[in-house]
């Protein structure tokens, strides 16, 4: 089947499945029992589909890309095991899922596997890693994501959780894991080139959706107790299906258009600058409104401000140092902002052979 047609079919299938799942939960067809079955089995099937398609995508690749897909497949497999265990509690044993439960083993095992997959992605070894500014960039993004999570999810959970119990620790492990995943997603977006951009967007969107659903789940569990079959479950189903779509379109190769190159450049700029800007804005609003953040939040805010200012200074130095290089000021500015040289973006490299090696 034509590659493009297969991609369109997978997108349509994922969108229709997610819409049907959401509509079923919203309308409540079949009463509580029907909703519970659809909620549990829908999540399980979507995680299983993502696992199979990631493993299949890995077999068609070589080197780091194969490792990436297989690790991501393993992460999805761990989540599928978690979903299956959850379903056994819900549908076979017909009892409320305890916190913590055996299902958490599967869910939490997926987090380090997903991080390992992101670390194995070829984008993580691109030219963006060369400079000291890349290190400060990463630090700024990490501090901002941690600060935002602490302010909205982690901090309130930390206050209300009983950390002497396993349930309290497991409840906190989810948002902590999500912070790490979101950080690595932003790092991959920051360093990604236009090569294989479409698959990567679907994957990162899927991982982001599951991470957000995890954090909301942890928060809801702590505040009011989680009840299965709510619209929150859509986050996981949409996330797994987006990963599946990314796996389907993973073999897109060939020459990269200048538009794709531009979009990768913009994504790289936004991924590096928006999280620190969002974090700094929240700090400013909190202090301006007279709210007194807790000690940990203040320390994180101070680190964020210092790192952001150091990063801007390094950026200015790098920009001034690039005056000897050829090209107009706007060319040098663009190259500096995307964290590499323009040639890195312009040259996607020769096309891949069917076994994944460069021709």
């Amino acid at each position, binding site marked *: 089947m034509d590659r493009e047609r297969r991609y369109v079919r997978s997108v349509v299938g994922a969108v229709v499945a997610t819409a049907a799942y959401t509509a079923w939960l919203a309308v409540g067809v079949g009463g509580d029992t029907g909703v519970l079955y659809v909620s549990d089995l829908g999540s399980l099937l979507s995680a299983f589909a993502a696992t199979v398609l990631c493993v299949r995508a890995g077999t068609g690749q070589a080197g780091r890309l194969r490792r990436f897909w297989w690790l991501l497949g393993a992460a999805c497999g761990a989540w599928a095991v978690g979903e299956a265990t959850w379903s056994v509690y819900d549908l076979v044993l017909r009892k409320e899922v305890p916190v913590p439960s055996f299902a958490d083993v599967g869910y939490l095992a997926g987090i380090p596997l997903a991080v390992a997959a992101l670390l194995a992605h070829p984008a993580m070894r691109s030219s963006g890693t060369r400079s000291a500014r890349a290190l400060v960039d990463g630090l700024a993004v990490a501090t901002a994501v941690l600060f935002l999570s602490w302010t909205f999810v982690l901090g309130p959970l930390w206050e209300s959780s009983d950390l002497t119990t396993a349930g309290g620790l497991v409840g906190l492990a989810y948002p902590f894991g999500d912070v790490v995943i979101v950080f690595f997603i932003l790092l991959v977006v920051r360093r990604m080139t236009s090569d294989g951009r479409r698959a990567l967007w679907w994957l990162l969107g899927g991982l982001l959706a599951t991470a957000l659903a995890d954090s909301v789940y942890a928060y809801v569990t702590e505040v009011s107790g989680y009840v299965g079959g709510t619209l929150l479950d859509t986050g996981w189903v949409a996330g797994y299906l987006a990963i599946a779509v990314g796996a389907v379109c993973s073999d897109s190769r*060939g*020459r990269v258009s*200048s*538009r794709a*190159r*531009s979009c990768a*450049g*913009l994504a790289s*700029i*936004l991924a590096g*600058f*928006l999280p*620190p*800007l969002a974090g*700094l*804005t929240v*700090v*400013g609003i909190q*202090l*301006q409104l007279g709210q*007194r953040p807790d000690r940990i939040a*203040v320390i994180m*805010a*101070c680190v964020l*401000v210092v790192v*952001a*200012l150091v990063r*801007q200074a390094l*950026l200015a130095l790098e920009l001034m140092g690039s005056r000897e290089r*050829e*090209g107009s000021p*706007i*060319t040098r*500015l*663009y*190259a500096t*902002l995307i964290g590499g*040289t*323009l*040639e890195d973006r*312009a*040259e996607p490299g*020769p*096309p891949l*052979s069917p076994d994944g090696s460069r*021709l």
Partner: protein
Amino acid sequence: MTLGIRISYASSGPPGSRLATAAGASLDRAAAVGLVRLSPPAGPPRVTRTERTHAWIGLSLVVATTAISLYDTYLLATLALR
């Protein structure tokens, strides 16, 4: 085996350059199936109009981040001295 042959061609040009256009189209097709590798034209790298817009967006973000960082520094210092 790699042949180090450099071929200069124009895939578009003024009217009358049909030969160059045909050669360019053939080379593009050959590159698309991986038979040859086309290098970018010599000279300094250029940015497109879209990339120029993105550079300005980036510059705005840099300016906004710097301004808010400085303002937050003032607010945090005030908080520490209170």
